């Protein structure tokens, strides 16, 4: 985002309201307010990718070797990944103050 929305004049509005910069929502880091975050026990992980599929924020990233981790900038701590993990290798850890 080049400048705050409230600074745009009508002349500066993009034609048709089109957003030409893909992924602009990345600017909004929504992970600040989580009270817990997922932690993987890699030795148990079977790399099935269910956690990646179910994450509503797209915050889970695939790492080298096919294991998964989370981008804490965007994880809201909902715990769906831990709940859905087929072998239970994800645990939710409370945030420290």
């Amino acid at each position, binding site marked *: 985002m080049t400048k*705050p*929305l*409230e600074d*745009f*004049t*009508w*002349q*500066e*509005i993009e*034609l*048709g*309201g*089109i*957003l*030409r910069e*893909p992924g*602009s929502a990345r600017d909004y880091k929504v992970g600040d307010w989580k009270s817990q975050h997922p932690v993987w026990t890699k030795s148990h992980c079977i790399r099935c990718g269910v956690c990646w599929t179910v994450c509503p924020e797209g915050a889970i990233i695939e790492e080298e070797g096919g294991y998964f981790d989370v981008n804490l900038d965007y994880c809201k701590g909902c715990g769906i990944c831990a709940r859905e993990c087929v072998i239970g290798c994800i645990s939710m850890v409370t945030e420290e103050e």
Partner: protein
Amino acid sequence: MAKRVGIEVSLAVSHAVQLARAEAIAAYPITPQTHIVEHLSSLVANGDLEAEFINVESEHSAISACIGTSAAGARTYTATSSQGLALMHEILFIASAMRFPIVMTVANRALSGPLSIWNDHSDIMAARDIGWIQVFVQNGQEAFDHSIMAFKIAEHRRVLLPMIVNLDGFILSHVVEALEFADQDTVDRFLPPYSPWHQLDPKKPVTMGAFGMPEVFAEFKMKHQVTLMNSYDQIMKVWQEWGQLTGRAYHPVEHYKTDGAKILLLTMGCLSEVAEIAVDELRAAGQPVGLLKLRLWRPFPFAALREAVYGAELVIVCDRALSVGGAGGPVLSEVRSVLYPVVPHPKVLGYVIGLGGRDVPPEAFKEIFFQAQAEAEQEPSEEFYMYGVRG
């Protein structure tokens, strides 16, 4: 001059769209627009028009598909009528806000209920504020001409707005009459291929139809408003250019025998020529009457109308739609409000005529003229008048 040919006006519109080399058509059949898209679909099926014809399950889908094809960069056409236009309603605003230069023919027909398939302007008047350019035509020749010109206007880089050509259902759309076609060479020279302002491309993803947050929504609307008003200049240029090519010039407010007229009838669509006959007869009887034909409805031709009424004492607006519970017809409301700042402004009286396919012969305009003349001499007895209603 090209030879006149006889053709049903609907088919003449299809032919215009063919000559304009529309690349994508998505439409759903609805009386009295059906012949237009039926014919286009056969042109596409027979290989006479290289276009994608998308059969859809409703008008809501038709206009949505048009947004898709226009976003993909195709010259896009559709046509509808009445309930079909109503079903498109929410998407019509989106098409114009997203600046897709779709061209649409509306074969004007009453909105139900009671169920009516016949002609009036209630369909388009309910879609008055959709942010499209809108014109009305009065005969088959104009329907043909404007169907081609619409693409050039809509697609211009400084316009990029969708455009509606309104033609009266049945009493115009279904009449076999004489008109002159333009040939393909002429149209190709007049209307170059569409070079889209944006084409969907998986390699360069963009977001279309995103939120307009409260911080920018009004700015967005302001831009739409200014662009639509500014499209006026381009409309004039295109009409002029077509006039030079064909000898048929068009104006936002057409004048008929207005010189020295103290009383002006104002009409839209194909009843305008019927009103001409009444004006001829009234003039012959010594009445100081003239006719204004409002061709351009959006953007509203403020200056042209104010100039046109100069010197008139009474303007009689003939609406073909009723704003139930409101100030008469939508055209009356707008004309009154546009003329109010003119000093001194003429009296403006409104008549609602020809609803739901009611026949309007020239005599109707003569009766309206005499009634309005009498009403204007005193305090008008009504806010507006429903002409020819029994009881």
